[in-house]
């Protein structure tokens, strides 16, 4: 850093020239570019206390210090793999120069297990939108759609609860989630969404199944009971699909936190695509039109919001393009786009509905896995913590300099 770029030896060893030459090398050592940017006057560094070149040591900003024998401050190991990027003109984030403590991660990675949590995100979204579709189908004379939607919503919600409890470090204490209510904790808010949602959609699904069971008493089969449960569940359907985005975003994980205002739309769009797609696949086509429309619009919202997540956040968008997350998200996009086109064009035929519904659900699930992976990758590399924060500091300093 503070070395002569050209490596020219300093002329300090000429005895005669010494008196005049001394200040120059001293400045060369001390007056690094860092000093210029930090705005410190040269004199303050070592004069008048230190007259010896090379001894400014701790007193010199930068001072040429770099980590001993480690990789240099520049990233050497970060080589971009060919084909690791999309073909659609993804922004090329330049390899940033930054410092770290032996390359170790700064923020901790989430301890959430995979596939538990990504599956929970997927099922929550699919169940949430299915619950809304099921309730509306009850009142528009679409019994087959209502039946399918109730089963998907209830099944997805109950499975969600299972995954969530399994993911706890102390599963037997899952009820501790309900001992306080904290709006600052998306997981607390989510617990109060998931509990009634899973209870009500589970009840609607159970009552749907009970219709065909001979041993169930008649009063249980009353349609108003099922409809009440279905509507109750639908009330929590939207929040159920949306809150999981805030759950991820409200962390210090760079690639989850930065796109925190867009992730809710990714997740609800994805939930609509999955719920609509699954309902469409398991419902006779003459009743499935609302599910089809929801799936197509949801897929479009998911793709549009995901595009912003992947491109609007500078270096923090990078994990969405590279590695396993990048691969998953590229496949997810292909599935979602193909499923949406398929649903719009061929959704009126049974086989078309099944194929495109399956593609949409797969796209939604892969999106969740991809977003989850991208966040985990961003937490593991100190680059995604240091570089954006440095940029933030620089921007603030520049703003202060221009106003003050």
């Amino acid at each position: 850093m503070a070395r002569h770029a050209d490596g020219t030896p300093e002329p300090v060893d000429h005895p005669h020239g010494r008196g005049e030459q001394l200040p120059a090398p001293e400045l060369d050592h001390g007056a690094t570019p860092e000093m210029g940017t930090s705005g410190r006057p040269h004199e303050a560094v070592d004069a008048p206390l230190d007259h010896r070149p090379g001894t400014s040591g701790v007193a010199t900003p930068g001072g040429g210090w770099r980590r001993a024998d480690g990789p240099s401050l520049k990233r050497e190991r970060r080589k971009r793999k060919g084909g690791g990027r999309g073909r659609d003109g993804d922004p090329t984030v330049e390899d940033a120069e930054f410092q770290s403590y032996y390359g170790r991660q700064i923020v901790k990675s989430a301890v959430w297990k995979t596939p538990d949590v990504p599956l929970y995100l997927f099922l929550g979204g699919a169940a949430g939108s299915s619950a809304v579709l099921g309730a509306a189908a009850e009142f528009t004379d679409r019994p087959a759609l209502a039946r399918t939607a109730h089963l998907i919503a209830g099944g997805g919600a109950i499975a969600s609860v299972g995954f969530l409890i399994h993911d706890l470090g102390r599963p037997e204490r899952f009820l501790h989630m309900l001992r306080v209510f904290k709006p600052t904790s998306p997981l607390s808010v989510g617990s109060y969404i998931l509990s009634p949602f899973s209870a009500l959609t589970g009840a609607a699904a159970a009552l749907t199944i009970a219709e065909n069971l001979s041993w169930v008493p008649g009063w249980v089969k009353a349609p108003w009971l099922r409809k009440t449960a279905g509507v109750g569940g639908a009330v929590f359907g939207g929040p159920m699909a949306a809150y999981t985005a805030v759950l991820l975003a409200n962390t210090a994980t760079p690639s989850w936190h930065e796109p925190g205002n867009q992730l809710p739309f990714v997740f609800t769009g994805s939930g609509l695509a999955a719920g609509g797609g699954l309902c469409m696949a398991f419902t006779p086509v003459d009743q499935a039109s609302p599910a089809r429309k929801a799936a197509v619009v949801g897929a479009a919202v998911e793709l549009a919001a995901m595009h912003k997540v992947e491109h609007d956040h500078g270096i923090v968008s990078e994990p969405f393009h590279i590695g396993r997350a990048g691969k998953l998200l590229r496949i997810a996009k292909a599935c979602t786009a193909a499923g949406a086109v398929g649903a719009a064009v061929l959704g009126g035929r049974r086989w078309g509905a099944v194929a495109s519904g399956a593609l949409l659900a797969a796209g939604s699930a892969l999106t969740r896995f991809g977003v989850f992976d991208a966040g985990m990758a961003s937490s593991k590399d100190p680059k995604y913590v240091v570089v954006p924060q440095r940029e933030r500091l620089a921007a603030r300093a520049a703003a202060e300099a221009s106003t003050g």
Partner: protein
Amino acid sequence: MSQFSSASPAFTGHDPENRLYGPLPDVTGEAGYEADHPARVGFFTDTSVCIGCKACEVACKEWNTLPMDDADGNRDALGLSGMSYDNTGMLGANSWRHVAFVEQSRSVDLPMPGIGLPAAPGQGAGSGGGCGGSRGSAETPAHGDADGTTIDQHSVLNAQALSSFDPQTAQSADREIRWLMSSDVCKHCTHAGCLDVCPTGALFRTEFGTVVVQDDICNGCGYCVPACPYGVIDQRKGDGRVFKCTMCYDRLTDGLQPACATACPTQSIQFGDLDELQARADARLATLTEQGVTTARLYGRDTDDGVGGAGAFFLLLDEPEVYGLPPDPVVTTRDLPSMWRHAAGAAAMLVGVALSGFLGRRR
């Protein structure tokens, strides 16, 4: 203890401005404690006098009976991190103090062979580099140096000497080596992300203004782990719950100092009332700056920073990220209201899209 102590100040009704970030002069009172609560306490870790002895790590492990783990948090494993002298590696569930060792070097320009002349007496001190080193030491040991260094070493605490003899620096061949050592710890933030996101109320603000996990409440959801902007709190493998520094809550309630501060032989770790520590740190920084140590800076001292100021703050000699600290940490909850608003919009979008499909002509 107040029932509100696990809630963010923004929701206790004690904070008129409903803030999720920014300065909070009485964080303990905001958490719901009565006005006669104890003063907020903290750590001031002055890394300029840290000698890297790890007494703090050992004292903490012993007092809090923390299990053994390696640099990656694997339980009951012993391993070399492969970097520096640091095999603790990071703060985590089993390491509540972590001494970072940063080994730095820089090149010293050597004279061209045959051009350089033996240093004349009187010039030795002028050309000596670092601790006992000389620019020409590879070929021409300068006699003046030995004396100069001895004098410097004897008076290392005087301002003149500190700049000409840097105790953290040594020379080896054409390179100068220096060590930066820093004992890292939980910051006990004014706006603590871990506390904000804990869904069970296991994390709470104590009467001393510190942040502590109640291990009989924690259900191991793990949300606090990625929420901490410093990467402090972690889940203990094989246990499932999360653990972090309590600032020796048990010792504080009995009027004792935390174990690490008690064990520190150089007063690098100072414990006390936070306002006193802040004044002391400001004075120390002024002294060092006056002595020419212009790289010294306080970290976590500024109450206008992203976490509203830290309860445990540091005097560093290099950029924070060199020590593994984030340069500009922000409590994640600062952006939560905006996220909730967007989530509400997204939920409404979902319901609207799902219902609009039922409008219009049947089939």
